[in-house]
């Protein structure tokens, strides 16, 4: 009878150990999965934010023949969100070009873009400044021979 009880006890201990090992492996995999997922999400966020920032330097508004960053800088130098480029080109409203582009890249309400020059600052996007965000910034040239900054919060 005692031998039977011992056998059962051993069997239960073995089952318990196997369960512990299984749990350990599962927990380890979940942790690794979470880490990988976080890394991937981080890299995806980095990529999309960098892409969005770089696109400001590369995208040109055909009607004006100027890059988006130039239009934003020119507007910020006048401390407003529109800029007049002469009798032939007319008025350009910067919100109408910047906000749809960033909405399509990052989703509406998920971003805020601040542009700083020595003469004025302009903010685009609706992401609240109270929310916890990641910030990506880049220096921008501001005439004459000075530096401004564009900061993207996501």
């Amino acid at each position, binding site marked *: 009878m005692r*031998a039977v009880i*011992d*056998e059962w006890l*051993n069997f239960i*201990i*073995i089952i318990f*150990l*196997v369960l512990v*090992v299984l749990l*350990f*492996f599962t927990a*380890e995999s979940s942790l690794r999965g979470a880490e990988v997922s976080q*890394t991937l999400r*981080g*890299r995806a966020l*980095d*990529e999309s934010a*960098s892409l969005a*920032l*770089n696109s*400001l*330097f*590369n995208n040109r508004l055909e009607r*004006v*023949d*100027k*890059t988006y*960053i*130039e239009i934003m800088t*020119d*507007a910020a*130098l*006048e401390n407003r969100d529109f*800029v*007049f*480029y*002469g*009798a*032939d*080109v007319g008025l350009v409203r910067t919100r109408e070009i910047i906000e749809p582009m960033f909405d399509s890249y990052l989703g509406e309400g998920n971003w805020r873009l601040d542009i700083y020059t020595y*003469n004025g600052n302009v903010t685009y996007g609706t992401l609240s400044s109270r929310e916890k965000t990641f910030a990506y*910034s*880049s*220096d*921008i*040239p*501001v*005439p*004459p*021979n*000075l*530096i401004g900054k564009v900061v993207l919060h996501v």
Partner: protein
Amino acid sequence: MSKGSSFLPFVFIVLVIGITLISWTIYNIYYGSSYQSLVFEESKLDTMRNEMEKIKGFSRQSLIYSSHQSLTEHAVASGMMTEAGPWICNGADPPSVADTVECLEKYTEYHVNAYLRNYSTEVPIELNIQNFSEAEFDVTESDVLSGAHDEGEMYVVLRDAKIGMSSREIEMSDLINIETEIDKNRFWYMYRIFTEWAETNMFGDGICSCASSCGDCACAENVAQESLFDLQNRFDMFVICDSQIKCCTNEHGDICGESGCEDWIQDVCFDPCGFECTDPNLIFEGPNVTNLTSYGEMPEDKLSLQAAGCHAYIPIENRLASVYTFRCIDYKYYVPTTSGPKELMFSVDAFGTFYDLDGCITEEPCTGFGCTPSSGCSSCTPPCPNYTCTA
């Protein structure tokens, strides 16, 4: 016996599980750390690649601003920095396209490198940027004069900047050349029209005519207004021109000369001719027109003609020198400035200085014995023997 036989499989199973766990842990420590460093290295590489792209974008934008900046500076300084003479120096004397392009390149390179010097990054890497060594405007004289660059449409190239980045584990460097198109800037349009206008030399010829016809600064002002009207008519409706006097002087010199209109070398009202591209200043103060100083007009000639029955016509040398600034503003395209986009202003000086030995002619009564005029260098009309001179 039965107790021992039941214990052994248990020990065996515990050992197997123990060895599996230890192997797993060792494997993970090794693989995990190498995976971690790989991910870290990859992300650092990514960061550096992104930074490199940012610098390229920044450089391209700097080139756009610097090109506009140079064009604006050159436009306001008679197409040449900084020792820019008049475009009309008695005759037409505009700076050549090649000289202007060379100077534009020098200033554009300077401005771009000034922007790059101020560039900084928040990423924890060591950044080393070596300046661009050459800027090139793809602009030729024939293209300018044919109007090919009237709306801008010119390519500007920057060459040979070296960007180096390094962190503890990774080093990265790249040699960058940047090309961009400068549009919607009518510098060359204004240059072309001003050149065509200067070539007709309406201003120089007009001042010469004034000198030859006893004209004074009022005559010079009329010439300036006619030249301005001619200049304005050459531009389209987006350009508005005006003129301002910088200097005018009028004198009378020797009498009895008979020469035609000649260049008058003087230093009262003098604008040195010729162009020289000086090195850029360290501080750019923005487009600004030189304050124009009016020296006022010289007192009018007080010589009055005398009506006399018998008189002599005596030539008097007339000297006239005048400098005007002709300024045109293009409202079609605004260009970048320190306070946002503004209209492009092109400013040019015109300089005319002439004398004519018989520019003025005065009448003098023939008086005294021998019936000669008091100045004595012209015969009396009608001739004295047939005419009684009045007292």
